[in-house]
C-alpha cells in the first residue's frame, strides 16, 4: 500500500508541491485525498530529494495543505479491451454511459513510445472520402495525419463527420473503428457528434472520450493520449483501421500553456511553452502504419485558428508536424459553399503516394495540378477585375475568371450526404477544364487530353 503524505507546502494554479517524500519517479501517477472525501488525480512533473511537483488533472480547487498525497508507483496507464467499442468514456477514461465496467485485456502506458522509423510502413492506400476538394486535390491516405484548420463558426464538425461517414478504401472490406476524443468542446457540439454517430450506426464501432468545456482543463492533456493509446491497441493489436478525431486542439494547447505558466517557464511565442512542438508531435506522430501489421491509425485533428490566423502558434506548429492540412475558408462559407474547403491553402503531402494508376487514376496528378494552376489564375484575376472591370480582360482571362467561379460552385460545393467516387471527381475536373482553351492546359500530357478531355477525346 502506497504511503500517504500530508506535506503539501505550496499550491499554485494546477500545481501542487509536496516535501519530504521518499524517492518518487518522474511521471508517476498521484492520488490526492481532499478533506471532503473526494479524490483527484495528478502526475509528477519534477521530482527531487527536496520536493515533488505534481500537476493535478482535475484542477486544484478544494485541495488544502493537509490533503493526503499518494504516489501510485507507476506512470499513467490506460486499461484497454475490445469491448470498448461502442462505449462513451469521460476525459480520464472512466465510463460515462452507465454501461458495465470494462474488463481490461491490457493496461498500456499512455505516453506511447515512438514508432521506430525503420518499422513504419509507407502509407499509400487511397482513402476515398467522397469529397471532391479532398479526394481530387488533397488526397488522404491510410496512416496519414491531416488536420482541419478552421475558425469559430465554420462547419468543421460537418466536414469531419462527412469524412467519418464516407471514408472508405476502394475494394477493401477490413475492420474499421472510430476513436473520438473531445477536448473542451461544448456539450452541444459533443451531442452533435454523438447524434450523427448514432444515426449512422458508427457508434457501435466507436470509442468516445469526452472532456467537455466545463470539465477540468488539465484533464485535456490526458484525454487525447488515452484515446491514442486505445487507437494503437485497436490498430496494432487487433488489426483494425482506426480513424481518430481529436477536437479541439486549440483547447488542448491552452491547457498546455496553463501548465507552463504555472511552472513559471520561459515561454516561446504568445505565451505557449517552447516544447509545444514536441508535445504536439508526441500525439500527431502516433498516426501511421507498421510493417507486418494489419491495422492503421489515421488522424483528423480539428483546431480552430484564433482570429482565423494561420500563423498563430497552434495551427503553425500543427502544420509543421502533420502531413498537410485541410483549411476551412470563411470566404467560401459566406458565399454559402459547403464544404468551404480552401483548396489553395490546403495540402496533402502524402497525396503523391496514394494516387495514380492502380490507386486512383493515371490522370489524377495532372488534372489536380492543372485545376490548381487554373483556379489560382482565376482568383488572381478577381482582384484585377475589381479595379479595371471585366471588360478590360482579354478573352482568355475571362475564361479563367469564369472557371474559378465554376470551380467553387461545382467542384468544391457538394451536398452533406453527397458521396462522389474518385472517377466522378476527376471527370468533373475535366468538365471544368474544358471551359479553358486547350492550349492553356500546360500541366497535362497530351495523351491524357486525348483520352479524357470531354471535347477533344475521340469518341
Amino acid at each position, binding site marked *: 500500500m502506497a504511503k500517504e503524505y500530508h506535506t503539501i507546502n505550496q499550491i499554485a494554479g494546477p500545481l501542487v508541491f509536496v516535501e519530504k517524500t521518499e524517492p518518487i519517479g518522474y511521471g508517476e501517477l498521484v492520488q490526492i485525498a481532499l478533506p471532503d472525501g473526494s479524490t483527484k488525480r495528478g502526475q509528477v512533473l519534477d521530482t527531487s530529494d527536496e520536493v515533488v511537483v505534481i500537476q493535478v488533472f482535475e484542477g486544484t480547487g478544494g485541495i488544502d495543505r493537509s490533503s493526503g498525497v499518494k504516489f501510485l508507483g507507476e506512470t499513467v496507464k490506460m486499461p484497454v479491451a475490445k469491448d470498448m467499442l461502442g462505449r462513451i468514456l469521460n476525459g480520464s477514461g472512466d465510463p460515462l454511459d452507465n454501461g458495465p465496467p470494462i474488463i481490461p485485456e491490457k493496461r498500456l502506458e499512455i505516453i506511447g513510445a515512438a514508432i521506430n522509423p525503420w518499422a513504419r510502413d509507407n502509407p499509400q492506400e487511397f482513402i476515398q472520402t467522397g469529397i471532391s476538394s479532398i479526394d481530387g486535390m488533397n488526397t488522404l491516405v491510410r496512416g496519414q495525419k491531416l488536420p482541419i484548420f478552421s475558425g469559430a463558426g465554420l462547419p468543421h464538425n460537418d466536414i469531419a463527420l462527412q469524412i467519418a461517414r464516407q471514408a472508405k478504401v476502394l475494394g477493401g472490406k477490413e475492420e474499421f473503428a472510430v476513436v473520438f476524443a473531445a477536448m473542451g468542446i461544448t456539450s452541444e457540439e459533443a451531442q452533435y457528434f454523438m447524434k450523427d454517430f448514432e444515426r449512422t450506426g458508427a457508434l457501435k464501432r466507436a470509442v468516445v472520450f469526452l472532456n467537455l468545456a466545463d470539465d477540468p482543463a488539465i484533464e485535456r492533456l490526458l484525454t487525447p493520449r488515452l484515446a491514442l493509446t486505445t487507437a494503437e491497441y485497436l490498430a496494432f493489436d487487433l488489426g483494425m483501421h482506426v480513424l481518430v478525431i481529436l477536437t479541439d486542439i486549440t483547447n488542448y494547447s491552452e491547457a498546455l500553456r496553463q501548465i507552463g505558466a504555472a511552472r513559471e517557464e*520561459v515561454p516561446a511565442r504568445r505565451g505557449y511553452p517552447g516544447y509545444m*512542438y514536441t508535445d504536439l508531435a508526441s500525439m500527431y506522430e*502516433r498516426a501511421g502504419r507498421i510493417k507486418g501489421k494489419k491495422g492503421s491509425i489515421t488522424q483528423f485533428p480539428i483546431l480552430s485558428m484564433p482570429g482565423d490566423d494561420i500563423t498563430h502558434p497552434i495551427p503553425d506548429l500543427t502544420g509543421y508536424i502533420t502531413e498537410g492540412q485541410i483549411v476551412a475558408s470563411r470566404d467560401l462559407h459566406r458565399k454559402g459553399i459547403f464544404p468551404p474547403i480552401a483548396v489553395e491553402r490546403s495540402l496533402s503531402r502524402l497525396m503523391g503516394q496514394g494516387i495514380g494508376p492502380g490507386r486512383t487514376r493515371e490522370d489524377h496528378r495532372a488534372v489536380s495540378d492543372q485545376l490548381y494552376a487554373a483556379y489560382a489564375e482565376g482568383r488572381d484575376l478577381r482582384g484585377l477585375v475589381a479595379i479595371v472591370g471585366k471588360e478590360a480582360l482579354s478573352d482568355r482571362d475571362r475564361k479563367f475568371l469564369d472557371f474559378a467561379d465554376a470551380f467553387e460552385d461545382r467542384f468544391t460545393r457538394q451536398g452533406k450526404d453527397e458521396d462522389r467516387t474518385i472517377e466522378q471527381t476527376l471527370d468533373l475536373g475535366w468538365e471544368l477544364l474544358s471551359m479553358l482553351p486547350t492550349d492553356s492546359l500546360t500541366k497535362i500530357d497530351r495523351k491524357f487530353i486525348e483520352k479524357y478531355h470531354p471535347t477533344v477525346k475521340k469518341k
Partner: protein
Amino acid sequence: MATKETGRISRVAGPVVTAEGISPRMYDVVLVGELKLMGEVIKLVGKKTVIQVYEDTSGIRPGEVVVDTGAPLQVELGPGLLSSVYDGVQRPLPVLRETQGDFVSRGITAPGLDRKKKWEFTPLVKKGDEVGRGTILGEVPEGNIIHRVLAPNDAKGKIKSISSGDFTVEDVIGQLDSGYELKLMQKWPVRQARPYVEKLMPDIPLVTGQRVLDMLFPLAKGGTAAIPGGFGTGKTVTSQQLSKWSDAQIVIYVGCGERGNEMTEVLTTFPELEDPKTGKPLMGRTVLIANTSNMPVAAREASVYTGITIAEYYRDMGYDVSLMADSTSRWAEAMREISSRLEEMPGEEGYPAYLAARLSEFYERCGRVKVFSGGIGSISVIGAVSPSGGDFSEPVTQNTLRIVKVFWALDSKLRERRHFPAINWLTSYSLYSPILEDWYRKNVAEDWNQVRLWAMETLQKESELQEIVQLVGSDALPEEQRLTLDVARMIREFFLQQSAYHAVDTYSPLKRQYEYMSAIKRFSELAKKAISLEVPLERISSLQSRTDLGKLKFEETMDADLKKVAAEMDKQFASLGA
C-alpha cells in the same frame, strides 16, 4: 581510461537530470538510473552534475545510480556507415527494431558499427612506413565507394606490421613501433570538429539537377545554404531532391525532429533509385539519421553533430560530402527546451543566448578543404529552417542567414499556386555565383552567364511591370512590355517549375538546363523582332513552338525535342512574316 565513477540522482525534470557524487568532465556520457539511460553532462554547478538524457525519463527517481563513463559522446567511424539508418546518437534503427520491436524502448544500446561483419582490407602502407594522422593505411570497398582507412588522430610512428584480408571493425589490422594497434574503426567526439590542413576556395558547383538552383542560385561544393520556409512550402522535398540528385559522393541526411513517415518515404524510395553519377543504388552513398519529432529531444540536439562528424570522416578520405539537416529549427528548439529546463537566462523568443554561436560553429564545420590524407574533400551543408509563423524575421532564420552564403527562400504564395519548387526568384540569392562563373563557362557553355543574367533581368522586369498591371490591367501596356510578361511567364512555368514527382522532370543535367533556357531566350529575341515588325502578340503567343517548349520537359526525348523545337521555332516565326 578514466575509471567509472558512480553517484546518485538528486532530481529528475523531464530530459534533465541532476546527479551528485560524480565529478565528470563537461560532455562526458553518463548512464542514468537502473535502466542505464544514456545522457550527457551539460553543466557542472558546485557538487551537482546536470545531465541531458537521450531517452524518456519516466519512472526514474532520485536516489537511483548514475555512472560516469569517462568519455564524451562519440561516434564510431569505419566501414559500415553507408546505407545505415541511425537515431540521433548513432544507434542503428534496424538493430533496435530487431531487439526491442516496433516501438523504440529505453535503455537499449547497440553499437553504431556491426561487430560481426567482415571487410576486405587491402593495405597501402608497408612495414617501416612513417604514418601520422590521416595517412591512408589501406582500402576497403564499401557501398558505392572505396573506403579509405585513415590513421587515427593520435597515431604517429613507423608501421611495425600490417595485414591484408577480411577483418571486422574491431580486429587489429596492424601495429606501429610503439605498439599502437591499428583497426578499421576509430571513434571521434561529435562536438569537436575533425581537423584538416587548410580551407580552400569553393569554386566548383554542387550540381543538383534542379533548374532554379543550378541556374539561378547555385551552391558550391563545400558551401552552405539555408532553405527557410513555412510549413508545406517544400523544405523536405528540396532536401530530398538534393540528396537524390546532387553530384556529391556521400550524402548524409539528418531528419532532425521531423516526421516518421518522411523517413519511411526516404527508406522506401532511395533503394529503388540510382546514384546519378555511378549508377549504383543510391543507398550505397547515403547515411540516414532519423530522430523524429517524437523521439527524445536531447538525442535530437545531438543528431546534427552525429551527422556532421560522419560527414567530416568521409571528407577526410577526400570525398565530396553533402549534408542535409531537416530541420535546423527543430535542433534550435531542442537547445531551447534543454536550456529552459536549466533555467538559463533566455535570449530572443526563449532561445538560449548561445544560439547564434552554436549555429555558426556548426556551419563552420563545412567547407572545401585540403585533408591530411593528401587530397581535397568537401562538406556542403543544406539546412532547412522552419520559421515560426513563416516569418523570416525570427531568430533561427536570422542567425542562419548571417552565416550561410546561399539563401533559397521558400514562399507560401508560390506554394498556394503550386509553383514548385516554391523558391522565390526575387528574394533568394547565392553569393557563390561570381566564383562559379568560370567553371560553368569552361564546363557547360561559354555564354552560361549571359543566359543566366538575361533570365534574372527578365524576371526582375516582370515584377516591376506586375505592379503596373495590378493598377491598370495588362491591356494598357505596350506590346513589347506585354511580351516581357509573356516571356517571364515562360521562364517561370517552363523552366523554374520542376516537379519532383515526374520521372523525367525531376532531374535536369546542366547541359539540358542551358539548352532549355537558351531556347526560351531565342524565342524571346525572335518575338521581339516580330513585334517590331508589328506582328500582334496574340499570334506569337499561340505559336506551336511556345506550347511545345512548355511540354517537352516531360518527355524522355527532351534533348532531341529541344533541337527540333528550336528549328521549328525559326520556321514558325518566319511564317509570321517577320
